[in-house]
């Protein structure tokens, strides 16, 4: 009995749940919620078994695939599964967090009545696609699932576009936010598809196995790989909401909070980071590509964190925080890849810490950000508002929520021993390492940006926490009738435990699973990592570790003075919300306006021109031909006038004509 051979069942189980719930959900209790939970839990258990068997095995990637499309003698597209440490990790945390969030949904979505069926069907489909995405054995299959998660994201952001608890404006918001998310990510997806074409052209295959084969890579023009990689990274920018395609994610908060937690924090937006990690063997072929990756990530981190500083919407703050943390992950992968790219050229570095840092931060972030979003959901569920100015003093009424959120906030701020501390310090360490490898000072700048981001993160998280749970009761807080139901608080407690302890995984051999190295002429995921003790020593010796701790504590202290003790008036720094920088942040650096302007100036005239061409040229031709035929036949049918004489005449005329033709033919061919 080997579970690995049944690993393809992992995405099939939620798919079955999707079909059952989609068809019969409302005839079962909770609109099919329990079926969705069972599907996700079964997928998690099977993932655990698969993971156990994989880790106790040889460690080589497990591949099972079948030919799908045979394009020509050279190119065959396959369909199958590819399991290595990275996919196992992704499978485990995607199915685990989904299970918790589905359980939480039973409480959070309890007021939705017959729309529950739609909700649970869509989230089950999402889980199917997410698991398929991480298990795919080639880029094309990955791309298909990549698009399905995009569709699920679209559907779930627009979940309240028909009936929103807060009325009509919010409905329009949900609909346009869904559209925006779909269209903006589409721009990235077009790049990604272009990248796949480049790879297909260069490698004559899209299988990971073929593409990641070092000997095969050496035969391909490096410029083609760099072009393909940068195009694939375009897809990552869209899906993981990196600058400049970041603006859809804050708007996506119009969806239910559970969706924000599941799709827009813990799993789907990680697909982009996953894709970079997955394509590492190709990305590390070019140091320039990795430099671009690192710069985009680092810039997104600080850029997004700044917008979280003064936002008053509970969920929006968390959304910007997600953007910024995704930036950290991309930064870590870029910096690590840069080291490796330079090292591969000179032939002396064959492993990278950045990969470990990025993937580790991805896992930890999934736990603490899901926790924070679910905590926010619990608050919103209790008070019916997302505006933090109307909250306050909820700590006494919602003890579990406030304590678990405090753990999440400490974790993301990077307080030692909490999960976020380990991975964030690894990210910053990776950036320092990259500077040693080169980059001409860019990495010093990126490191400073990372540290400033850490300061901002600690500040805005505790601003959020103090504004929500401490201080005087706001208008909305008075509506709070106490703690949320058990189905909502128990996932919070599980996630809080993980946000506390998941950092320690790195000390029990986890970092050995998350490494990326070039050994014996091939790229290997897992193994050959730094030992746990070395890592601890490295962290303890590095002055940068203490710098980031100091910065985090400073951020928390600032928030404490401003929003708890209130002896520092935040209004002093921004002229009571009238100063230019304050407005700049509030308007999101005018990015939505910028997008709209582009759309109105360029896209709209272009669309009008295309529309004109379509109506006049394409439709005109088609309609013209059809019209001519219709009019012509209108005339022709008049010849059938019902007169026997006419018919007889036509017949005789025809015979005469045929005879004449026959004579001519005989005459021309020289007689009988």
């Amino acid at each position: 009995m080997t579970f690995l051979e049944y690993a393809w069942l992992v995405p099939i189980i939620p798919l079955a749940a999707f079909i059952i719930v989609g068809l019969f959900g409302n005839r079962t209790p909770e609109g099919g919620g329990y079926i969705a939970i069972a599907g996700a839990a079964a997928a998690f258990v099977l993932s655990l078994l698969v993971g156990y068997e994989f880790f106790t095995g040889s460690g080589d990637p497990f591949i099972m695939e079948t030919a799908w499309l045979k394009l020509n003698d050279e190119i065959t597209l396959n369909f199958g599964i590819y399991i290595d440490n990275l996919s196992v990790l992704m499978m485990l945390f995607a199915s685990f967090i989904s299970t918790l969030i589905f359980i939480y949904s039973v409480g959070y979505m309890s007021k939705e009545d017959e729309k529950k069926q739609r909700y649970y069907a869509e989230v089950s489909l999402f889980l199917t696609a997410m698991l398929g995405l991480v298990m795919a054995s080639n880029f094309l299959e990955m791309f298909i699932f990549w698009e399905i998660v995009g569709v699920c994201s679209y559907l779930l952001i627009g979940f309240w576009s028909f009936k929103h608890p807060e009325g009509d404006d919010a409905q329009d918001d949900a609909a346009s936010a869904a559209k925006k998310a779909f269209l903006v990510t589409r721009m990235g997806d077009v790049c990604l598809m272009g990248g796949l074409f480049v790879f297909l052209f260069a490698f004559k295959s899209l299988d990971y196995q073929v593409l990641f084969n070092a000997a095969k890579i050496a035969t391909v023009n490096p410029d083609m790989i760099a072009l393909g990689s940068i195009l694939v990274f375009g897809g990552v920018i869209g899906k993981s909401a990196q600058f400049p395609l970041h603006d859809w994610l804050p708007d996506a908060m119009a969806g239910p909070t559970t969706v924000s937690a599941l799709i827009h924090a813990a799993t789907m937006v990680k697909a982009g980071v996953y894709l970079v990690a997955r394509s590492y063997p190709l990305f590390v072929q070019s140091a320039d590509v990795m430099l671009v990756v690192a710069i985009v990530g680092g810039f997104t981190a600080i850029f997004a964190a700044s917008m979280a500083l003064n936002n008053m919407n509970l969920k929006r703050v968390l959304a910007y925080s997600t953007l910024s943390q995704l930036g950290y992950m991309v930064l870590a992968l870029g910096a690590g890849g840069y080291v490796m790219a330079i090292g591969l050229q000179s032939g002396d570095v064959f492993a990278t810490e950045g990969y470990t840092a990025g993937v580790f931060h991805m896992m930890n972030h999934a736990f603490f950000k899901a926790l924070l979003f679910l905590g926010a959901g619990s608050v919103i569920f209790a008070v019916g508002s997302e505006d933090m100015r109307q909250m306050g003093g909820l700590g006494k009424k919602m003890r579990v929520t406030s304590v678990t959120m405090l753990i999440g906030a400490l974790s993301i701020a990077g307080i030692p021993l909490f999960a976020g501390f380990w991975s964030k310090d690894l990210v910053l360490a990776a950036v320092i390492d990259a500077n040693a490898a080169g980059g001409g000072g860019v990495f010093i700048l990126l490191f400073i940006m990372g540290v400033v981001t850490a300061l901002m993160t600690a500040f805005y998280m505790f601003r959020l926490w103090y504004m929500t749970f401490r201080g005087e009761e706001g208008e909305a807080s008075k509506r709070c009738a106490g703690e949320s139901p058990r189905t909502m608080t128990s996932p919070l407690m599980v996630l809080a435990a993980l946000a506390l302890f998941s950092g320690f995984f790195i000390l029990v051999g986890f970092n050995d699973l998350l490494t990326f190295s070039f050994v014996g002429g091939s790229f290997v995921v897992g193994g050959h990592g730094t030992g746990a003790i070395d890592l601890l020593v490295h962290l303890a010796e590095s002055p940068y570790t203490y710098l980031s701790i100091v910065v985090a504590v400073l951020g928390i202290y600032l928030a404490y003075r401003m929003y708890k003790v209130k002896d520092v008036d935040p209004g002093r720094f921004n002229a009571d919300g009238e100063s230019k920088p304050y407005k700049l942040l509030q308007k999101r650096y005018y990015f939505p306006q910028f997008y709209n302007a582009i759309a109105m100036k360029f896209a709209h005239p272009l669309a009008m021109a295309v529309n004109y061409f379509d109506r006049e040229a394409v439709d005109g031709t088609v309609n013209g031909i059809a019209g001519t035929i219709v009019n012509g036949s209108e005339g022709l049918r008049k010849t059938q006038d019902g007169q026997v004489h006419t018919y007889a005449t036509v017949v005789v005329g025809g015979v005469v004509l045929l005879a004449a033709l026959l004579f001519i033919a005989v005459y021309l061919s020289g007689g009988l």
Partner: protein
Amino acid sequence: MIPISFFLVLSAAIFVLGAYGVMTKKNGLVVLMSIEMMLNSANINLVAFSGFLNDVSGQVFVLVVAAVAAAEVAVGIAILLNLFKSTNTTDVSEINILRW
């Protein structure tokens, strides 16, 4: 012996007369008669060639054609009779309901 061309000219003349009748005459009965003329012109041809070639099968064909013509006239007259009952006319130019 009468040359074969005489028969052929006679046959062609009768055929053309018949065709002219079909195309111009308004009375349905006359049209039917004109059709008979055309059929019989063809019969003349068959008989003439039969004699000319000393082959009796041409005469057999004539018998077949005569039988078919009789049947056709029977059906044609029956149709005309019914038309006359419902429209009170045998003028084929007035009977034009089967058109666009």
